């Protein structure tokens, strides 16, 4: 199972095994990682699962889609170059070892 590491705004880290095909958001929420709110459950409708993707993985993870791009513009924390909504990143072997920082404000 691919691993994903979440870094909280205060620096605390947790690494989880993700189910292949589950999103970075789902993996976090199901295991109770704080700071990933994800009220819409992954419908790309709420922008409350905002993360900053670690530079080393930015190219592999890729750019947000148009809809996600617009959502990120209005996210509670200002977007950064590697901002993504974690519900739109599906875990796979390619992303094993992924590191994301959780945006400080989600709602």
């Amino acid at each position, binding site marked *: 199972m691919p691993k994903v590491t979440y870094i909280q705004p205060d620096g605390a880290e947790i690494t989880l095994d993700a189910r292949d095909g589950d999103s970075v958001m789902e993996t976090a929420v*199901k295991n109770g990682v704080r700071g990933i709110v994800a*009220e819409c459950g992954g*419908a790309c409708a709420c922008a409350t699962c905002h993360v900053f993707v670690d530079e080393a993985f930015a190219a592999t993870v890729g750019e947000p889609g148009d809809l996600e791009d617009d959502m990120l513009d209005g996210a509670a924390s200002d977007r950064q170059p590697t901002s993504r909504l974690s519900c739109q990143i599906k875990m796979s072997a390619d992303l094993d070892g992924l590191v994301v920082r959780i945006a400080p404000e989600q709602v």
Partner: protein
Amino acid sequence: MSDVLIVGAGQAGMQIAVSLRDNGFEGRIELVGEEPHGPYQRPPLSKAFLHGSADIETLELRAPSFYVDNKIVMVPDEKVVSIDLSGERGLAVTDTGREIHFDKLALATGSTPRRLPIEGADLDGVLYLRGIADAVELKNRWDAAASVVVIGGGFIGLEVAAGARMDGKQVTVLEAADRLIARAVSPETSEFYRAAHERRGTSVRLSAKISRIVGDGTKVTGVELDGGEVVPADIVMVGIGVIARGELAEQLGLETVNGAIVVNEFAETSDPRVIAAGDAVLLPHPLGGDAQVRLESVQNAVDQAKTAAKTLAGVREPYRAVPWFWSDQADLKLQIGGLSTGYDQTVVRGTPDDESFSVLYYRDGRLIAIDSVNAVSDYMAVRKALGSGSTIPAELAHNLETPLKTLVVDS
């Protein structure tokens, strides 16, 4: 130390449990739900789940280990049938005869689909959609069904209708009112959805008067309208709203209105030992004012549950939130921010026929809500504005040249 019993293991019930722990509550937490599953997401049931792109495990709100790790006793498949608050400690009894003793009670009993009170409504193939069991039943019949009649042109019905059309079925939506989603959106948005569903091949019949559902003795075959016309149907999906489940609250003598449990801004019921949250409650408008509202949404279930948990943990913080809602129908993403109740003016931004536009709602010149269809930037700008108590001048809002977020001003 005290023990909390949470009745109802949906989105709100689960969030109360989670937020109790987040607030440092160390007492025992028992979460009892009558469905055979742990807490799960309902919104995908009318969309991704129906089309096979989400299984039950995907729908789980938390992994089973989460409840163990957080010392939340999660009891599925058991129904609380009576509660007694007359003693020093509360006592609940379930349908298995089990007794649960507790100090504080949270009701997150949710709602149940309103049933269609007409002849033929009990025929096989007349379906409702609320829980996984309903969705499984619908899904099991889905592939074999060539024609679907949806009774009720609200969100659930239209989401199912859109999915049925995408799967090539013949689809008719029967709505009793003279427009779709009449309870939640303006006539402009209603008319857009009528046209958009028609463009996708669905027959939308407004002001429809249904006389009965017809069948071959056991199975549904169609829906008969006043005047005798029969619309053929292999499946009839009924989505005519929900009723708050206030049975236990009524049994406890709590204040209810049409079954909805009345709560204050701290999610307290008329008995301060009992809090309630989610679809089952009638609450003060979460942006202030005198109005009492029912909010059947994930956002409200989650945010109000957080308030309820704080109250239980001894942190008094009134519920304040910008209500928001979404509905995905085919490739149309509707996002609603704020509550339009009581609006006296609307501004349409963009052209509905382009399938990307917004309707902004105003009351006394002040922005109160937005419906956005495939117009995410508008929606996000308004949600932020409402959250910070700001507004957007009505006379400027229609101008597509100017992004809404640049028009936000203090009010």
